[in-house]
């Protein structure tokens, strides 16, 4: 079965975030900044690769983003993605409606007849909780979101979703959109041969046109934080008695 995954390149900071001077972007100019994928999307990809391994087929990764997003596609190729489709942007942010429309268009127009789209329930950066749902409506497919357990047999996906201490069970016939959460599986690490193979896999590019966002970002801010730094109560095991005092002070130890 042929599966599409939708993934997004996002910044990763080794420490606290800082914003650009105009307050509209996370400052990614420092050399310490890196780029990554959301764990939800790593898990979406792992789920697709596992299904490919048991049932055969292919996995294609779609991303709408800057040309540098092909780095994230290559990372996923190293763990089993076969092909990438980059919907190239100039870096200006697309809202969820436009993103889902462009992804739906690309998935529909693709030469591959996909049986499923697997993606994240929410993106790491925007956290919009909707691209998957909009994509499902555009494709006319069912969607299950917040998926923490997934298996497919005879063209039916069985999905589990955690609610309190229980798991809700859903079953949908393919083709379907499945929006997963971190923890649905443990994504594998890329192997050296995987990385070498990844370099030769194809990435197709398209250039969709951006429409004016209907959810329009005006500015970003960092939440107020308690300034300060921890009181160092000791070095090494000798600090243990002081820990007991603190536990008593805050009332967690009688």
């Amino acid at each position, binding site marked *: 079965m042929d599966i599409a995954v939708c993934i997004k390149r996002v910044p990763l*900071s*080794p420490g*606290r*975030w800082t914003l650009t001077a105009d307050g509209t972007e996370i400052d990614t100019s420092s050399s310490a900044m890196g780029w990554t994928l959301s*764990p939800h999307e790593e898990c979406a990809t792992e789920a697709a690769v596992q299904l490919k391994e048991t049932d055969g087929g292919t996995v294609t990764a779609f991303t709408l983003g800057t040309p540098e997003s092909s780095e994230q596609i290559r990372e996923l190729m190293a763990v089993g993605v076969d092909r990438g489709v980059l919907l190239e942007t100039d870096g200006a942010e697309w809202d969820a*409606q436009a993103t889902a429309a462009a992804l739906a268009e690309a998935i529909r127009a693709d030469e591959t007849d996909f049986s499923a789209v697997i993606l994240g329930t*929410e993106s*790491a*950066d925007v*956290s*919009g*909780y*909707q691209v998957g749902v*909009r994509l499902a*409506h*555009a494709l006319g497919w*069912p969607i*299950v979101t917040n998926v923490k357990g997934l298996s497919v047999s005879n063209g039916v996906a069985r999905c*589990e979703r955690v*609610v309190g*201490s*229980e*798991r809700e*069970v*859903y*079953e*949908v*016939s393919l083709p379907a959109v499945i929006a997963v959460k*971190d*923890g649905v599986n*443990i*994504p594998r690490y890329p192997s050296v041969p995987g990385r070498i193979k990844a370099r030769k896999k194809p990435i197709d590019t398209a250039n969709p046109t951006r429409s004016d*966002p*209907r*959810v*329009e*970002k*005006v*500015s*970003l*801010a*960092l939440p107020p934080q308690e300034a300060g*730094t*921890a*009181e*160092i*109560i*000791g*070095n*090494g*095991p000798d600090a*243990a008695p002081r*820990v*007991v005092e*603190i*536990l*008593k002070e805050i*009332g*967690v*130890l009688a």
Partner: protein
Amino acid sequence: MILVYVDHDRGTLDELSLQAITAARGLDSDVQAVMVGADAVALAPRLGEFGVGTVHVAVDPRITDYTPMACGRALASVAQQFHPAAVLAVGSPRGNEVLAHAAAILDEPFAAECTEISLGGDVATVTRNRWAGNVLETARVHASMLIASVTAHAFAAESIPGAAPAAVVEFSPELTEADLAVRVIDRVGSGGGGVSLAEAKVVVSGGRGVGEGGFGPLEELAELLGGTVGCSRVVTSAGWRPHAEQVGQTGTKVAPELYFAIGISGATQHIAGCKNAKTMIAINTDPEATIMSYADYAIVGDAGQIMPAIVDAVRAAKG
């Protein structure tokens, strides 16, 4: 008028949804609600207590349990009929999902996880959480009807003393088979005993610095303090601990009296899950680690040596 989607689980009201009603009352005094399923009928009058005038309850014999797309369809149909200034729900997994369906059906924008909302004709302004609340976005939403979820706990549920019960209007939404295709068909227990991570008063969390074999003393300390063990994503992705213990943006969000961050560097995505801890104690070999700027107290040194000493001291103190 403001329309609020109020969730319930097989006849048990979702208390978080009441917070969305409070948010709605801040925008307009005319607040109406939509609930879905026959077992909502008995719950609906109670919403009057929180300021809802009328509850539109979608009833269809084929809806016997949570059916997300049908909920979105029912909500969208009431919105189309009454043209409210805003359609709100709480930012729970179900609230966000139902609003996303309604927004897709209506082809309108949807702003999830808002902490502030102000309406203004064709353009509303919201403050919303990005990066699980580590970054706040101010956004303009271009729509004559704002569809937005409010972050859980951004508004408190406020009852109105002496308010009349809400009027209940049952209706049967137009639903296709496709709207009913995705629904809860079964429930299975996760069998998780012990103290739940989200509710624990003490969380003893370990990261990469604890090492694969180092979690024993963390378990002992959690047990002694009636708490539970948490961890970072590095730990779950290495398979050292189950994902159910992961704290952070893509894990569980905790708000304990006391949080131990042991061998955890303090990445913003981890902090997103534990910043509401009342007191944080960090243990780290690196005095410059980011976690030091979030913790109240810190011990610099090797967790492998420090943790057994703390366990012994706490055990002795308990006598």
